[in-house]
């Protein structure tokens, strides 16, 4: 897989008028591979939201460089190419919808790019269908639920035909139903269209769905690897970073600490039940032998 985003030794300092700047990101290097699902985990204030805003040139690195496709994000001539390649969804569903009608909002990005009206129409209709919001095309955004608003925002990014979808805690302000709606939508787009996903979150269950995880703490990327491997092997470091394991991984860890050897790396209820099934078979085998 080729890299679509390359982050090289990036630091980012927030400017403060009165005092010394604050380093939110400190010397992070990472890559986003085409077609992968990368989750960035970390507690509030760990620098994860700053990092993701560096990936589409909303913030420009104080040190180091960020490259999207062939373009450095500091290259002003290509900033719109960068933003078209990398779509972004924010945490607050209300504060990213510009228009008073759903379909007009989905069209917003394409209108900015100067796409012809006929093509905008086609792409907007297709994007709304992709997030299953076609029947709300003429609705007013403020009448939608949080989950629906986020899906409209995803449609707005999707209409611009990006390669990468950046999501900054897209489910943090939603109820469990809305959270499911949004995650299922993103999962489907990732699976069916090969959309590259970069998801910032502190919900460990959401990270489980991805290919790779980066854990941030105090502006640094402290851990990196496939989620299951990380949750199994780095439980302590994860807890120290202010996060917690998915409930089943936590249960397996506690049981092992008490001498009950749960087989495999169960992360979900189904996997845990299966692990105990395996344990039972194993013990019966021993009794028989």
């Amino acid at each position, binding site marked *: 897989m080729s890299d679509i985003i390359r982050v090289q030794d990036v630091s980012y300092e927030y400017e403060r008028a009165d005092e010394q700047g604050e380093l939110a990101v400190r010397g992070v290097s990472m890559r986003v591979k085409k077609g992968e699902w990368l989750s960035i985990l970390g507690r509030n204030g760990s620098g994860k939201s700053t990092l993701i805003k560096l990936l589409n040139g909303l913030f420009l690195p104080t040190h180091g460089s960020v490259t999207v496709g062939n373009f450095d994000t500091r290259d002003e001539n290509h900033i719109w190419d960068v933003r078209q390649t990398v*779509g972004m969804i*924010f945490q607050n569903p209300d*504060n*990213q*919808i510009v228009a*008073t009608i759903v379909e007009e909002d989905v069209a*917003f990005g394409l209108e900015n790019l100067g*796409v012809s*009206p006929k093509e905008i129409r086609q792409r907007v209709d297709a994007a709304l269908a992709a997030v299953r919001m076609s029947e709300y095309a003429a609705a007013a955004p*403020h009448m939608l639920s949080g989950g629906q608003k986020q899906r409209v925002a995803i449609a707005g990014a999707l209409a611009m035909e990006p390669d990468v979808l950046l999501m900054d805690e897209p489910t943090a302000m939603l109820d469990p139903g809305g959270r499911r709606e949004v995650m299922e939508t993103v999962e489907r787009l990732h699976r069916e269209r090969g959309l590259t996903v970069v998801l910032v979150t502190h919900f460990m269950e959401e990270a489980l769905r991805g290919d790779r995880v980066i854990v941030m703490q105090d502006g640094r990327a402290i851990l990196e690897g496939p989620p299951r491997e990380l949750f199994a092997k780095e439980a302590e470091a994860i807890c120290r970073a202010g996060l917690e394991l998915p409930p089943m991984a936590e249960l397996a860890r506690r049981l092992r600490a008490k001498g009950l050897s749960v087989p495999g790396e169960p992360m979900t209820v189904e996997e845990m039940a299966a692990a105990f099934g395996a344990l039972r078979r194993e013990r019966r085998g021993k009794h028989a032998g």
Partner: protein
Amino acid sequence: MLKDITLGQFYPGDSLVHRLDPRVKLVLMVVYIAMVFLVEGFLGYLFLAAFLAVSAFLSRIRIKFLLRSIRPVLFIVVFTFVLNILFTRGDHPILEWGVLHITWEGVRFAVFMSLRLVFLLAGTSLLTLTTSPIALTDALERLLKPLNALHFPVHEMAMMMTIALRFIPTLLEETDKIMKAQTARGADFDTGNLLQRAKAMVPLLVPLFVGAFRRADELAMAMEARCYHGGRHRTRMKVLRVSRADGWACGATAATLLLILLERLL
């Protein structure tokens, strides 16, 4: 709940009047206002009333709604009426009592002036009832485009209008929420004299402003992420097209204008 209240007074529908091009409607509204001020004499008022009645009928907006728009300014209408009756001088007195001189001319003038006001309000209401605020903004942006040459920020003004319209329901809801939260902390927004009430607004206004700035900041970032860079090279999904119905509407308006002018000249 606040968010169920429709914005402005737009009354959604699919009538002939609803479907007219908003630009055409805006231009015709200007012509209509001109007519209201040009009209003179019974016949002219009759033409204007007929024009309004036909438009209202075609819009399928109930007369009740149209008249409702007059209610808030009813006082001004009555005031105008009384003022004109009392202070118009004429040669055909009806009643003279002390300083009071009521003349036929006065009555006639008072009726006409009040009618003008009523026509003005009913007509503009018909526009806002049949055209969504967003369509109006859109029409304004396109009609005022030539002003760009004079460096008037037409697109920016329209974008600001759009965003304001988008966030009014959100901010109303937020106002309600903060008000309740502060009430739960013992705040009192309803009693006391003017100064006390003004002071009581601080716990509401500060969080509201802080919230609005946070929203503005986030929205600006979201717009940038979607490649917004002003009105240059921007296209629109919805192309406004003038239809045959717009032609008829222009024709009808022109005919009424002609009749009113004829009456005035003859």
